[in-house]
C-alpha cells in the first residue's frame, strides 16, 4: 500500500452536506474510470465493439439501481426522528429515569441475525434487557486466559454490577451459525477465518444431535442443534463463578428459549440447578 490518510467528515444529520460530499466523490472516480477506458481503447481499437456492448449493459444496470437507491444516512436520520417523536418525547418520565441509570431484570443472549432482535420478538422496552448479540447466540465457557473476554465482560457487568435477575439465551430457526457448525466436516477442516472456530463452542450440541437424531434430515438435525446449543450455552454460563454463585443463592435464574420464525412460535424453558442438603454417610 502507498501512503494513506484518514479523512473524517462530520455529518451532523445534515443531508445537504452529505449529498455534496457524496457527489464529489462519485464524479472523481467516474472521470478516472472513463479516462482509463478511453486510454485503453485508443491503444486497442479492436475492443471497440465489445466495449460498446458492455457500456450499454452497464447503463441499463445503473438506470435500474438509480431507481432504487438506498441512502443509509437518510435511513438512520429517519429512524432516529421516528423514535424521538413517537417514543422519547412522549415518555419523558421513563426516559428521564433511564438517563440516570439502568436496572434491567434480564440479560439476553441472542443471535446477531437481523430477524431475531429481542426488542421486537419479546417486545423489550428500553431499560428492560441487557443484550449480547453474537453469531448463534453462544456463551463460551469461563476462560482465565481471556480468550473470550468479550462475553466474560458482559456477564461480569450484568451479574455483578447491574445485578440482573435472569439470564436468557435465545436460539432461533434457520440459524446460519448452527448450520455452519453442523456442516463442519468430520475431519475438522475449516474454511473460514473465524466463523467455524467460533461456533465450535457448541460442538457438544452437534455431537449429541448426530448421535441421537442420526436418522433425521439435515434441516431437522439443525433445528435440534439450535435448541441443544442453547443448553450447552446455559451449561457454560455456570462455569462463571459469579453466575454459579447467583444461581446457588437464588438471586439469578437461567432460561433457554427458541424462536421459530417459520412457524411463528416461541419455546421457553428453565435450567434447574441446585444442590441438595448434604447428608452424612
Amino acid at each position, binding site marked *: 500500500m*502507498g501512503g494513506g490518510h484518514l479523512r*473524517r467528515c462530520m455529518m451532523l444529520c445534515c443531508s445537504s452536506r452529505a449529498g455534496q460530499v457524496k457527489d464529489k466523490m462519485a464524479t472523481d472516480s467516474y472521470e478516472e474510470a472513463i479516462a482509463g477506458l478511453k486510454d485503453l481503447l485508443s491503444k486497442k481499437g479492436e475492443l471497440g465493439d465489445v466495449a460498446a456492448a458492455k457500456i450499454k449493459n452497464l447503463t441499463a444496470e445503473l438506470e435500474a439501481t438509480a431507481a432504487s437507491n438506498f441512502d443509509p444516512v437518510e435511513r438512520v436520520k429517519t429512524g432516529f426522528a421516528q423514535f424521538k417523536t413517537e417514543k422519547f418525547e412522549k415518555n419523558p418520565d421513563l426516559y428521564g429515569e433511564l438517563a440516570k441509570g439502568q436496572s434491567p431484570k434480564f440479560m439476553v443472549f441472542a443471535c446477531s441475525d437481523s430477524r431475531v432482535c429481542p426488542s421486537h420478538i*419479546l417486545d423489550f422496552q428500553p431499560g428492560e434487557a441487557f443484550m449480547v448479540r453474537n453469531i448463534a447466540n453462544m456463551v463460551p465457557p469461563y476462560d482465565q486466559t481471556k480468550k473470550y473476554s468479550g462475553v466474560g465482560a458482559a456477564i*461480569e457487568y450484568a451479574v455483578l454490577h447491574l445485578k440482573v435477575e435472569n439470564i436468557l439465551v435465545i436460539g432461533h430457526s434457520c440459524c446460519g451459525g448452527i448450520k455452519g457448525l453442523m456442516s463442519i466436516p468430520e475431519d475438522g477442516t475449516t474454511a473460514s477465518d473465524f466463523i467455524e472456530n467460533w461456533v465450535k463452542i457448541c460442538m457438544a450440541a452437534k455431537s449429541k444431535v448426530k448421535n441421537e437424531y442420526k436418522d433425521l434430515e439435515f434441516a431437522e438435525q439443525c433445528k435440534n442443534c439450535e435448541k441443544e446449543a442453547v443448553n450447552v450455552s446455559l451449561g457454560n454460563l455456570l462455569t462463571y463463578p459469579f453466575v454459579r454463585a447467583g444461581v446457588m443463592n437464588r438471586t439469578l435464574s437461567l432460561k433457554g428459549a427458541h424462536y421459530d420464525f417459520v412457524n411463528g412460535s416461541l419455546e421457553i424453558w428453565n435450567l434447574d440447578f441446585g444442590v441438595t442438603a448434604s447428608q452424612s454417610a
Partner: protein
Amino acid sequence: MADQPSNVAAVAGGIKKLLREEEDLQGGEDQTTKTTTEVVDESPFDPIERIKEGFNHFKINEYDKYPEYFEKLKEGQSPKFLVFACSDSRVSPSRILNFKPGEAFMARNIANMVPAFNQVRYSGVGAIIEYSVGVLEVETILVIGHSKCGGIKALLDLPDDGAVSNDFVDDWVKIGLPAKAKVKAEFGDKCLDEQQMHLEKEAVNLSLLNLLSYPYVQEGVARRNLKLMGGYYDFIQGTFELWGFKLEVMPPLTI
C-alpha cells in the same frame, strides 16, 4: 403493552422482591398482598410471564399483521446494515433507530467495541464481521457509542499502573486504550464527565479504524463501496450524531 414502562417495577423493586417471597410461601397464584398497601404494580415480577406477554405482543401486532413481510424473511436475510451497539439496555438500535426485522445485523457487547483482527483473542467479533461483511455483504457498518457508558467509564478509570479490579470488563475495555490516550492528551484538563463523553466518541473512531484490519472490510470498501459510519446517542439530551469515516490510499510515490 408497548409503552407500559416496566421501570414502574424497577421503582417498586424492593417491594416486589418481598412480594415474590410472600407468594412463594403461599405457594399459589394469590395476587393480593398482606404486607403493604402501597404497591404500584399488583403482581410480583414473573420473568416467564413477561417473556410470554412480550412474544404474544409481537406475534399479534407484527408477525401476524404483516404476513408477506415475514414470509420473505423466512427465506433468508439481506440486511443492509451491520450495527455495533453497546449491550446497555437503553440503546437498542431496533428502538432508537427504528430498525425493523431484517434490516440490521447486530453485534452488541460492552462499550460497542471492535477490536483489531485477532483469531486467538477476538473470534467472536471476527465471526460477526466475517459473516455479515464477507457472506451477507452488508452495505454499511455503523458503530454507535452512547452517553453514560459504563464500559467507557471503566476504561477511563483504569489505573495507569495496570492494576485490575474487574476481571473481564477491564481486560475487554483495554481495546480502547489508544482512544483513551488521545482523549487524555487533548482533554486531560477537563472534568471526568467531559472526558468520558469525548472518550465515548473517540472509541467509536478507534473501532471504525479497527474494522479496516479485517480483509473482508478492506475488500468491501475497495470493491463495492462498503461504508463505515460512526454514531453517538445521547439519551440525556435526546440527540443522535452521525458521521462518516473514510480511508483513502494515495498511489505510491517513487522516491
